[in-house]
């Protein structure tokens, strides 16, 4: 079943057509990668889906409901959670507080509940938060301030923040950018594990071909705002249009 369906999405900034009639379908439980050269419109595409930018035309359906016109926090409450390219965490707070915030927000996105919260429900949220920290192997640092973490750990913490919301769809914007080889590999393993164990649907935007081909079960290639290829990694790799437009002269991947 399709979890996310995007049809004929358009967005232009002045004279620049950033996203041009882009369509894609994300199946439930799959890891779907969106690739393309710099300026292909990947990030704009993500911003349109998440409600950060307003689309000129097109439809975005999540579980059959339209996401267009919703504000970012409303999109989040439907279960679509975004991981940013530069880690967005709460630097002055402890790791556990970082994840507890999103666990609380998920359970009681409504405002009244957070004001008069029952202690027992709060404990449940803290348990969820600890579980999320554990899944990214940061539980032993739970009482540290987030600002003291290394860059790679900050990104993993952000992932934990998102995981403690138990997302239906996880959108990752270059999850391994700026990481060392070792950190990249552990992130890949972690994402694979989440996809397998929790059957979590992931959309990954990525540059690094190694990461893309070790993660993705389905690929969409964007070029100058439009979709030029869509299919399994094997199909895309052998698509002449992709080789010409994006992969240039590189024969071997």
């Amino acid at each position, binding site marked *: 079943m399709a979890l996310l369906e995007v049809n004929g999405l358009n967005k232009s900034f002045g004279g620049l057509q950033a996203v041009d009639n882009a369509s894609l379908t994300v199946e439930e439980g799959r890891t779907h990668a969106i690739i393309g050269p710099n300026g292909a419109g990947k990030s704009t595409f993500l911003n349109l889906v*998440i409600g950060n930018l307003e689309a000129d035309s097109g439809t975005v359906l999540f579980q059959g409901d339209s996401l267009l016109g919703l504000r970012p926090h409303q999109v*989040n409450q439907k279960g679509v959670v975004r991981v940013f390219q530069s880690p*967005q965490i709460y630097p*002055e707070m402890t790791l556990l507080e970082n994840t507890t915030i999103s666990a609380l927000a*998920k359970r009681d996105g409504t405002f009244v509940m*957070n004001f008069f919260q029952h202690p027992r429900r709060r404990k449940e949220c803290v348990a969820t938060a600890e579980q999320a920290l554990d899944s990214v192997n940061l539980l032993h640092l739970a009482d540290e301030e987030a600002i003291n973490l290394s860059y790679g750990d900050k990104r993993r913490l*952000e992932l934990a923040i998102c995981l403690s919301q138990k997302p239906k769809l996880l959108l990752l914007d270059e999850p391994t950018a700026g990481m060392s080889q070792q950190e990249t590999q552990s992130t890949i393993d972690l994402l694979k594990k989440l996809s397998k164990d929790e059957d979590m649907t992931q959309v990954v935007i990525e540059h690094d071909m190694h990461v893309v081909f070790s993660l993705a079960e389905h690929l969409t290639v964007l070029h100058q705002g439009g979709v030029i290829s869509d299919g399994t990694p094997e199909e895309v790799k052998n698509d002449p249009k992709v080789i010409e437009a994006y992969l240039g002269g590189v024969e071997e991947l």
Partner: protein
Amino acid sequence: MKFFTTDSDAREWVIMIVAGLFFLSLQWFLPLIGGYADLAKLMLVFAILVLGFDLFVGLTGYLSFGHAIFWGCGAYVAGFILANLTSNALVAILIAAVIVTIIAFLVGLITLRRQGIYFSILTLAFGEMFFFLAIAPLTKWTNGDNGYTGAEDVHINIFGWPLEHGNLYYFLVFMAVLCLFLARQIRRSPYGLMLRAIKSNETRLTYTGIDIFKYKVMAFTISGCFGAIAGALFLIHEKFVPVESLRWTTSGEVVIMAVIGGVGTLFGPMIGAGIVLYLENVLSGETGQWLLILGAIFMSFVIFLPGGVMDIPRRLMKLGRGNKQNGQSDQNGQGS
């Protein structure tokens, strides 16, 4: 030691008792250092105002320059009630709090749509608006430049218990502890956690499914309510409202008090209020240049101790530990 570093209900009670005893001791302790007993009352009143200010500014990180609105309006409304309706202080405080809470909600709805410096400027503009309203168009009720004197002859009481001298002092101590308790409970709640998250990273919080605008308006409204209670208590204490209480200078004074005490610590700003009032009242008797001295103190706090008075114990502890560690490493150096 663990008891004081981990959050628990028992710790809250201990803090409340200590704070209450501290507030009570002011009346004996102040005259010893050149103050007078009435100054203690004024300190408690201002402490509540600055506490409310810190509940919004310290947690969300938005700098409000309009807290004089709540303070001034609270005092005026309480004055009208006491002069015209009843001499029961509790009723006056309650009605003032309700009316000013509504005002705070409306002001918050408009000003909180902007962020950073624009928000500060908007609150400042609103403050000036209320000040000039009180001076000219509403002179009939506020008595304009001369200040409100309508409640001067009222025998203020709580259900017959006269609220004067010592009684008033104990009542103020009770109110200050109650407000501190409420403020700390708000900070401990999930709601307080969200407010701190607003200060830390608004983007993340928005993409975590929180409508931060609602949270900010709520915090601003609660803060306004604290300001109104303080304003009403000020009227009960002074039986007079100078029109300057609505002016931006009052808002500025609140900011100075909070910074000296330590923004975000809730108890610190209450101490800061005491320090500033002490300097204002005692120092001004000694020298005409007290404003200059206050300015210098404020500046040195911002530069050398941005965490305020409440940061001093932590710094001293760190200093002590640092010396110890240095000593150890020296010994190690000699050994190897």
